[in-house]
């Protein structure tokens, strides 16, 4: 194993416990890191990752009350906040390692179990960085969304380094899915499964069937994954997708509620449940999901207008059957405030926010306030900064205002 030069690598250390943090920072300094940023929780880490690039991320699984290390990893990998060329090393305890290993879809590049000595950490990091170097071309291609190139590079790597066969096969299979070569991907995953019962291969097989439109086979494989891996909650998300396509929205809703029971902090899952619930006219469940999503969005990569507007919409739909409770009204106003603060420079967002606000005041029978808001909206339309109300909206309002 080649000795790694860590002095030019930029490290991010994420650890909530002071004692462990000091110890790990000392270890990293001792074996040559000169650039080490520190985050005490996932939310701070996301801010740092947004503004700076890192080569090595050393994150504890357990990060106190906020997101855990696995959720952080999933979010930053999904939103491509860190490139594939960067190394993510998860620090785990014996009990949390199952959650990390069971996550299948987004796994860290490596893990290290507490307690570990400086020598063990140095060795683990050296090896991981060496593997990253071997896969460099593959990862650069993946980061550029050049999947054909990634496949070619991965084939070369696995010929040269047989121990990387598993990693390379997985990359090839998933790249084939990206370029819509579903049949090829399926046969690759099947081939892997024949010799090794790798969860990622079963996941790949299930996704291939899903993308080929063979929903029954896909469902069967996702259900198998759920049985095999108690901690792989994403399988529920996929199952819900299948149920939506099959028009079984109630079942999809139940599936997502179960998934959220297991893993409540995933914002995209909360959004999905909210959307399905809205489509089922179940505005109470929708409101609960979007309220949670709003809470989770603040320090997340998915801090988009949609999260907040959907929450407003769900409250507006609740108000269709009567005035909001004071608590619900508070929720509405606090989310509306966030829209005003962060997302009010968009014409569409403005129009949506105004319409939901009018709905709320009309439900309260507060005609004059509703009217004022409508006029404010119209004047924004005149100045070109908001989309105009639809004909249907205008006629509903006209009727309600009684003029």
């Amino acid at each position: 194993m080649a000795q790694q030069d860590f002095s030019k690598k930029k490290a991010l250390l994420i650890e909530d416990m002071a004692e462990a943090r000091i110890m790990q920072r000392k270890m990293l300094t001792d074996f040559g890191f000169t650039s080490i940023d520190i985050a005490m929780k996932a939310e701070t880490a996301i801010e740092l990752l947004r503004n700076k690039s890192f080569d090595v991320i050393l994150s504890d699984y357990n990060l106190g009350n906020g997101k855990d290390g696995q959720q952080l990893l999933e979010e930053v990998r999904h939103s491509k906040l860190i490139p594939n060329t960067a190394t993510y090393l998860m620090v785990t305890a014996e009990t949390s390692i199952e959650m990390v290993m069971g996550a299948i879809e987004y796994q860290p590049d490596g893990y290290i179990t507490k307690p570990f000595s400086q020598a063990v950490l140095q060795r683990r990091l050296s090896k991981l960085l060496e593997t990253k170097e071997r896969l460099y071309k593959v990862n650069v291609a993946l980061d550029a969304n050049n999947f054909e190139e990634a496949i070619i590079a991965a084939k070369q790597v696995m010929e040269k380094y047989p121990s990387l066969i598993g990693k390379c096969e997985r990359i090839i299979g998933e790249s084939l899915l990206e370029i819509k070569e579903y049949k090829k991907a399926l046969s690759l995953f099947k081939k892997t499964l024949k010799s090794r019962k790798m969860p990622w291969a079963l996941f790949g097989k299930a996704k291939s069937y899903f993308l080929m439109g063979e929903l029954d086979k896909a469902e069967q494989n996702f259900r198998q994954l759920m049985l095999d891996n108690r901690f792989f909650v994403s399988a529920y998300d996929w199952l819900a997708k299948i149920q939506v396509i099959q028009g079984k929205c109630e079942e999809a809703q139940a599936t997502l509620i179960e998934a959220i029971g297991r893993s409540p902090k995933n914002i995209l899952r909360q959004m999905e449940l909210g959307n399905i619930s809205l489509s089922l006219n179940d505005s109470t469940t929708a409101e609960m999901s979007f309220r949670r999503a709003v809470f989770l969005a603040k320090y997340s990569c998915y801090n988009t207008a949609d999260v907040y507007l959907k929450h407003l919409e769900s409250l507006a739909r609740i108000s269709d059957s009567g005035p909001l409770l004071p608590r619900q009204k508070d929720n509405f106003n606090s989310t509306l405030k966030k829209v005003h603060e962060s997302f009010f420079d968009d014409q569409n967002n403005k129009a949506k926010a105004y319409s939901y606000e009018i709905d709320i005041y009309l439900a309260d029978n507060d005609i004059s306030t509703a009217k004022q808001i409508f006029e404010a909206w119209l004047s924004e339309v005149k100045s070109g900064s908001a989309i105009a109300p639809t004909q249907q909206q205008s006629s509903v309002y006209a009727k309600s205002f009684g003029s």
Partner: protein
Amino acid sequence: MKKIDISTILASAIHESKNQVGTLLYQLQSLKDAMGSKDSNQKKIIQIEESLKKLNDEWVEYLYLYRLASDGYDLHVDTFLLDEFLDDQVFALQPSAIAKSLELEYSCDTNLTGIFDERLMTAVVSTAVYNALRFAKSKILISAKQENNFLIIAIEDDGEGFKQADTDEQPEEFLEGNTGLGLYFAELSATAHVVNDVRGFIKKESSQNLGGASLTVCLPQPADEEF
């Protein structure tokens, strides 16, 4: 009151204690750093450190044992280069061997790869090596090879070897003054590995290379043509 499953309680108690051992190890590390290598107490500290590490590894073993025995363990296999895997094991266990003035080495074909659960096999190898450390006179050897679609990992020493009775039906004697948990753990770990309905297994033998005891762990591998 609802009756509680005592093994679950014990498992979480072990987990708590293991975390405390981890904290002790960190504190010891700072003490060692502060003290400098010339200090006469250094040797004592290293002994304490090795004992704590062993304690930690044993508790890891018990935790896995609990999960394997209660069917709560999800096997996670991957492909590994044995040269790297065994090098890791020797690296982690070398200080314990040095503290007892014993040699610890590994040997295998540099291109040999195998498919197994890394965490389980790490715990199995360390359990076997800790055991060998108690019996070896001068040397312990870890080796790996592929034979008839099995990956065979052997831990051998140059001690007295298994007593005659042990090799039959009394595995309790394997860990003298111990409960035989180590061997039971190795067996459960091996049998958890299944390929096309073929299960893994363990063997207790005399060491051909060193004359002492040999524990071999045999893990089924996919047939070559399938690969």
